[in-house]
């Protein structure tokens, strides 16, 4: 059992999978340059020393191209782990992800597989409109993709391994403020959820959520950073005797619906917290699903706490208003329960 942050846990997960399976390799920009950074957030730092530049493959700045290359490699016996420096750049490879990777198995009638892992950092960190989006929902709506979003070091490593071993394209979203990257690549305002990670091989199965806190009065679903906001809110609410159950789905597609529904059937109240824009955000589906499938158990409307419908602003004081705060979660629950 070692104690580490998410960046390190991912790195160890990648290292173990690459040792285990020679078809696993990494591809992306600035991931393996000697003296470089190991990607934008240190995840692949040092791996090139063990695996060499062929398996930690630095690309030119060509997102769509290297995504397509990863797809072609995945269809012919390799298991690429690709990444983008910022999730925002996934839009540059959107056709390859949405029209190629996701649909290839279906449109071939099941004759091919695309075991591709694509990693992408999300979240607002004072970099403004083009480097701070939270864009999971663009990918949870693409049949054929799986989507995971680990919020702890344990889950990060376990989901990474599960993703590498999955025979379908899996997108992994990581939050910039949760990496726990060290040294001069640490992020201001980070949460750094340092956690214990087993030394032995394990996977976190894709599709299983986690109850981060038990409670009887309200179900709060969050993901990535908002799991921590929800937990902090739950602590605060507990002071008033309101016991919140906090669920971290970990996998967004497939979603552990049953875990959420079971909780709602117990608490009768539902709040989803996300950093993304509200309208047509990720939370819309969760709220709609709860409304549709647990309608008769609900004692009040399903409530969404989210960012407003604006691009991420640069100014720190605006960004603080943009990302759902602990207070906003507390207020939403109070209004619902009160």
């Amino acid at each position, binding site marked *: 059992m070692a104690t580490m942050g998410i960046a390190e846990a991912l790195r160890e997960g990648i290292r173990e999978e690459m040792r285990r399976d020679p078809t696993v390799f990494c591809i992306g920009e600035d991931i393996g340059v000697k003296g470089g950074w190991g990607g934008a957030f240190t995840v692949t730092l040092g791996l090139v020393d063990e695996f060499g530049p062929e398996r930690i493959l630095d690309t030119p700045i*060509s997102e*769509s191209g*290297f*995504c397509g290359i*990863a*797809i072609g490699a995945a269809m012919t016996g390799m298991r690429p782990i690709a990444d983008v420096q910022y999730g925002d750049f996934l839009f540059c490879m959107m056709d390859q992800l949405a029209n190629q990777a996701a649909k290839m*198995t279906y*449109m*071939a009638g*099941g004759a091919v597989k695309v075991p591709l892992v694509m990693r992408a950092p999300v979240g607002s960190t004072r970099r403004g409109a083009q480097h701070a989006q939270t864009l999971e929902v663009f990918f949870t709506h693409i049949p054929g993709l799986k989507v995971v979003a680990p919020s702890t070091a344990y889950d990060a490593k376990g989901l990474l391994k599960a993703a590498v071993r999955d025979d379908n394209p899996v997108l992994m979203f990581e939050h910039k403020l949760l990496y726990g990257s060290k040294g001069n690549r640490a992020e201001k305002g980070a949460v750094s959820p340092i956690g214990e990670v087993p030394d032995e091989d394990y996977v976190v199965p894709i599709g299983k959520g986690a109850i981060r806190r038990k409670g009887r009065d309200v179900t709060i679903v969050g993901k990535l950073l908002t799991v921590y906001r929800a937990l902090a809110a739950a602590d605060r609410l507990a002071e008033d005797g309101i016991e919140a159950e906090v669920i971290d789905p970990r996998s967004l597609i497939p979603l552990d619906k049953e875990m959420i529904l079971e909780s709602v059937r117990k608490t009768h109240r539902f709040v989803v917290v996300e950093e993304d824009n509200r309208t047509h955000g990720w939370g819309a589906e969760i709220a709609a699903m709860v409304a549709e499938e647990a309608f008769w158990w609900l004692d009040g409307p399903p409530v969404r706490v989210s960012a407003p419908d604006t691009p991420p602003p640069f100014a720190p004081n605006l960004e603080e208003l943009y990302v759902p705060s602990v207070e906003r979660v507390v207020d939403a629950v109070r209004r619902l329960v009160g």
Partner: protein
Amino acid sequence: MNAANANGLQSSVPGEADLIALYRTMLLIRRFEERCNALFLQGRIPSTLHLYIGQEAVATGVCSALRADDWVVGTHRPHGHALAKGVSPRVIMAELMAKVTGCCRGKGGSMHVGDVRKGVFPAVAIVGAGLPIAAGAALSARMRGTDQVAVAFHGEGAANEGDWHEALNMAAIWKLPVLFVCENNLYGASTHFSKAFAIPRVSDRACAYGMPGETVDGNDVVAVHDAALRAVERARSGAGPTLLECLTYRQCGHSRSDACDYRPDEEEALWKERDPLKVAAARIRALVPPVPFDPSGIEADVAAEIDDAIAFAEESPAPAPEDLERHVYWEGD
């Protein structure tokens, strides 16, 4: 059954048997497409069709330079690529007719035909998007230590897509074993080459990537084969990719409903004169010593093969309703 299909032709001075095999593949494609068109007009093939008629020498010439385990990525106009690489007319026809016996279980359709057992990816109908995928297959071949080669067929129109550029560059810097085969048929949909390019040849763009570029007569299957063979050998030996431009012409409309009013009649006539089947026949007749060439046996043979494919497709069932929600994810081999 079909030597050119079996990807066995490795010589660059083809003899009579080779030429006849090439001719047969081209004729198979031609007749197959003609029948497709008729079936489409009769409503027995749904949707739309992009026919390969006129371009048969390209797929045939290139695929005859490949091994069975090499990879090919086709386009929205993929029947010819698939047939030339050895995919059975049966599974293609069944796919076009939306039958469960089709190469994509009827779920892909004309624009996605392929058969990985024959080294043909599901075709990619997003113009340009197939090139990085082919480069990825080439990267994979090298990483897995095989000496397979990958081919990305594409129209000249695709050469103006961003993916084209990114794929060529990465293939070049990593010296990937891939051929970028540009079928310059003068039009991208209704748009003439000269409206979309400020240069005379697509192959001139190879200089931007430090890779060899070559332009050949795309209606001469031997010229295509020879150039492809050189490029394949180059790729297989580790020397890197090639951009091979084949000048050809789409004799039909772009897709099912296109009357081609944007093309001058003389241009069409000129290119029909240079029909790839005629060119190939002339090649055979010009062999030394001279060979009497009567294609009627091949015609009959090809017709039988297509009849069989159509019968197979007609008799096959449509996908079951449960098929709708299957294969979104991989279900195993």
